[in-house]
Structure formats: C-alpha cells, structure tokens
C-alpha cells in the first residue's frame, strides 16, 4: 500500500519513494463539478510548499491547486488534456495531475492521512 496524504485545500499526494503524485481529492472533484481543463506546470519547474502548482477548471470556476510539499516536477499527466473527465471519474487514479521529486520528506508530516482527512471533511458540512 502506498501512502496518501491530504491537505486542507483538498490536494492529495501519494508517496512512492522520493516521488509524490499530486492530484485533488474525491471531495474536491465533487465540489468542482465537471472538470473541463487542467493547466499543468512545466516539467522541471520547482515549487515551494503551498505554491500554485496547477489550475483546475470547471465550466464556471477556476481553482488553484497548491503544492502540498516542495519539490521539482518530474512528470505531468498529459492525458488530462484529452480526457479532463478522469479527474471526476478517478481522481486518485487516472486523474492525477503531476509528479514531483520531494525536496524534503519531512514536510509530509504536516499533512493529513486518510483517516484524519475524513474527519476533517466531517467538520466542513
């Protein structure tokens, strides 16, 4: 089992060694509604924790996606260009946005695990 962590802004990061795969949570995709476009960063770009890493667009809104931890972009999900719907259909799978090489795995500690995130969601409604 890989380790998935969440932010309060509903990004997730799935850790695989020193690589983190970033996307938005199932809750986030439901809130956004039909995703129509994802603006992805350039490979090689570096982010600090909390920097804007991508933009996800529905028909009526655009939302920034922030880097849960700092790192350098090593891969982006170019499949989203043709099928942005996978963000809705499979947010934690085919709907991933980008992969980064973690700069400091210590930053992960500040993020929520699955259970904590589920509790966090309960506080929202």
């Amino acid at each position, binding site marked *: 089992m890989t380790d998935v962590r969440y932010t309060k802004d509903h990004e997730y990061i799935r850790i695989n060694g020193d690589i983190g795969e970033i996307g938005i949570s199932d809750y986030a995709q439901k809130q956004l509604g*039909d995703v*129509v*476009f994802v603006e992805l960063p350039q490979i090689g770009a570096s982010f600090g924790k909390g920097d804007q890493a991508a933009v996800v*667009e529905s*028909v*009526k809104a655009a939302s920034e996606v922030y880097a849960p931890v700092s790192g350098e972009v090593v891969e982006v999900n170019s499949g989203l260009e043709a099928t*942005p*719907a996978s963000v809705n259909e499979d947010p934690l799978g085919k709907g991933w946005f980008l992969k980064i090489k973690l700069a400091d795995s210590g930053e992960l500690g500040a993020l929520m695990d699955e259970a904590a995130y589920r509790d966090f969601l309960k506080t929202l409604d």
Partner: protein
Amino acid sequence: MLNNQGRPTGAGESAPAYNRKTFTGNRALQTREALIFEIGRPEVSGIDIDEPEAFTPRLGALARKTPLDLPGLSEPETMRHYVRLSQKNYAIDAGLYPLGSCTMKHNPRLNEKLARLPGFADVHPLQPTSTVQGALELIEVLSGWLMELTGAHAVAMSPKAGAHGELCGMMAIKAALAARGEGSTRKVVLVPDSAHGTNPATAALIGFEVRAIPAREDGTVSAQAVREACGPDVAAIMLTNPNTCGLFEPEVVEIAAAIHEAGGYFYCDGANFNAIVGKVRPVDLGVDAMHINLHKTFSTPHGGGGPGAGPVVLSEALAPFAPAPFLRRMGADLEILTLVEETGDGAAFGRLTAFHGQMGMFVRALSYMMSHGSDGLRQASEDAVLNANYVRVGLGDVMSAPFGDRPCMHEALFDDNWLKGTGVTTLDFAKAMIDEGYHPMTMYFPLVVSGAMLIEPTESESRASVDLFIMTLRDLTFSVRRGELERFSGAPYYAPRRRLDETRAARQPILRWTPPAPIIEDEAAE
C-alpha cells in the same frame, strides 16, 4: 339548398395530445436553421458588383493564394437566414428582461433613426475638423449633460464600454499618483467581493494589486472597514454605488472621506446609475471617477453583446488626468487636440482607442436624454426604483431576501435560502421562467449571496406587466413548494433549445465550423 361547402371552422372535436416529430424538424414558426457554411455556396453572392476593367495590380508578390472558404448567399436567402436566427432570441422589445445590473430598458427608435442621419453615420473620424463641427457639438452637448447629471468637472468620452471606462478611470488615478510621485508606492486597490468581475480584472490589468474589503451583514460597505483597509500603499477604492446588491451605500460619503484622507482616490462603478439620475450627483458624494454605461442608463441598445459606450466623468482632482484626444472650444469652433502637450498642463495620458469614441452611441444617448429632459430623467429613475421595490414587496413573502425587507434601489435581490431542501436550484428556477416567456433575472451574481437572483424590471414596464411578472414568479414558487420538480429540473421545455451541455462545449471546444470529414468510400461500403 343548404350550402355545406367549405372547410371546417371549429378547433377540432377533441384535439389529441400530439408529439410527433416533423419531417423538417421545424415546429411551425419555430424553424431550424443550418449554418451559412452548410447552405452557402462559394460562387454565390448577394451583391452585384462588376469586375474592374483590366489593370496592372500593385500587390507585389502578395496576391492571395490561400483559399477564402467563405460561402455566399443571395439576398433572399440571407434575409431568411438571419430572420430565422433572430426568431430564436429573446429581446426587450418582446418581453420583460429583468437582468439585474444590465438595465434592459426600452430602446427608443427615434434614437436609431437619428444615429443613421448621414451627418452622423457617414462622417469619417479624420475628416478636417471644419467639416465635422456638428459632430463635435453633439459630443460637447452630451458631455455637458453627463457632467451636470454627475457633478463632474470633466468627462472622457472615448471609452468603448463600461470595462473600458474602468480602465480609463484607473489609468487616470495611476497618472495622478505618478504625478504626485507615488506611482510606485501606491499599488493596492480596494475592491469589495460583491464587485463585478470587471473591477478586479481592470485593476490587475494595469498592475494594481487587488485587496478585498468585506461587506457587512446588510450588504453594504462600512466606512470603518475602508478606514481599516487603508494605508500608504492604497491607490484607490473601486466601489459600485448603488451597489451590486441593489442598495445605495449609506456611508458612501464617509467612505469617500476615508479614502481621500488616506491619499487614495474613489473610483465608482456607475453601472447602476439608472437608479439615481437626477436624484443624486455622484461627484457630490466624493467620487473621483465613474464610468457611465450609455448602453444601460441611457438606453443605447445592447445589440446582443454590444457595442456600448463608457464615458468616464472625473472630479476636479482627476480632471487633468484624462486620455487624449481632447475637445476644446476655440472661439466659435471646436477643435480636437491630439497631442498631450497641447492640453496645457501635460498631465493627460495617451489614447485608449484609435478614434474619439462611440459616436453612434453618443447620438442615441443624447436623443434619449433630450427626449426625457431633466424632469423625465428623474422620473425614469424614480419609476425604476418604484418598480423594483414593487417586485421586492410582491415576492418578499415567498422568496428570501438576503438583507431583509429594506428598500432597494432599481433592482431587487433574492437568494436561494428559500430553495434549500426543495431540490430546485436558482438555475432551475431561472430556466423555468423561460418556459413562462420571461428572460431570467441575473443569477449567481453578486457572488457574495448564495444562489443570487437579481431582478431589475426597469422603468419601461407598465404596472400590468410587473403585476403579471410577480404573479408568474409567485406561481413558480408555489410549484416549488408543492414539489413539482419536473417543472424545474428539465426546464426549459418550450424554448428553441433545451438545456445545453456546457461541459461538453468546454471539454472539446468547437469554436468554428469545419467541413465534415469526408466519408471514405470503401470503408463506408463495409
């Protein structure tokens, strides 16, 4: 002999429910219409023009080689195409158009007629000024009306719409700050969250940083909040008044004082000027710059999305900081000054557009203003406010108003609180209005109110018309409460189109017609 010839004249014994698709896809007067690219032919033209006699072109090597792919239609086909298209549109001429913030009032046809006089329509912007004195006079007279109605010291006429006017006003502010040597320190523009999107977009366009200021529970901005947000980095506030919730900002004078005290300027979004023409003069309230949407307040037709015109009135403090060109009276003659240096004080900034602004709209607006006169303009504003309050009271017991039952200006705002738990959304409710023959109100704006419904009936509606509108909306609310969800969830049922799939449009954008891919013969045969 009894004559039993002729056709039956009754309505038919018992007319059966009938739902058959027609051969054409048309439904009587509601016709389908293909794209010009599907019905036009490249060799057809609706215009007779003879080829020139032989001559030697002077095009060098740049004669067109690329195909044009522009099909033509004969004149009768053209008429039919566009008349059929027009029949798929709602219009103020055809019914109440309660689009809040947009002031869809009657567009007098006198204005159209006058704008088409050859002396206005067939005049070139770069003709010698000696040949356009009447056009310049019209601009001068219109400027005078706008200044009198707003209390302003100057007016910039060239902006092409409200948002362009915002740009003009914010540039004037930037120029004024630069003249004070504070161009690089004052970077922040205060904008309430309830503002129209053009306000923050305009500020950001010319490098200002947008700082949100909160509104109070009652939908208005407090002078205290402005004071707290003010600092040495603040350039201006952009405030809509009457605001986008349909309320006159009660502390506007104190807000103006607060921003001035802090060294900033007061930009007022004048989109809602229709509520107060002849009642209050914005510059008297402390406004430094305000655009006026001639296509709202002064009835120039909206044309399905424009053109508009957005003259900007300026206070004494900002009057020197206006864009070129300038109109100046030199004795009996009017002159156009294009060089910033010629304006005398050197504070002006450059052009916002190639020529002098929306002359066609100026003629219409002046015709409207003169027709109304000072008495009619004030009456129009009072009637607009009266109609809106009448709607507010007529619906207040069946819908929910976010700010209680206080009087509104020229538009009445409701939210979707009353829809909670019914399974009907603001969008559904709006779409059901379409089936009832109404254009929906502005929905989901302002953003600060959940599921906002902003209703602006304007002064152009008779009492009978507003009464019927109120009764219709009441009926819809009863339907919501009875749980008649299908009236809403699938609406509209009777419009030229059912709900359109916007997700599909955005996911795989088709933004132009392209020829259908040819069917490959042998594959098709299989």
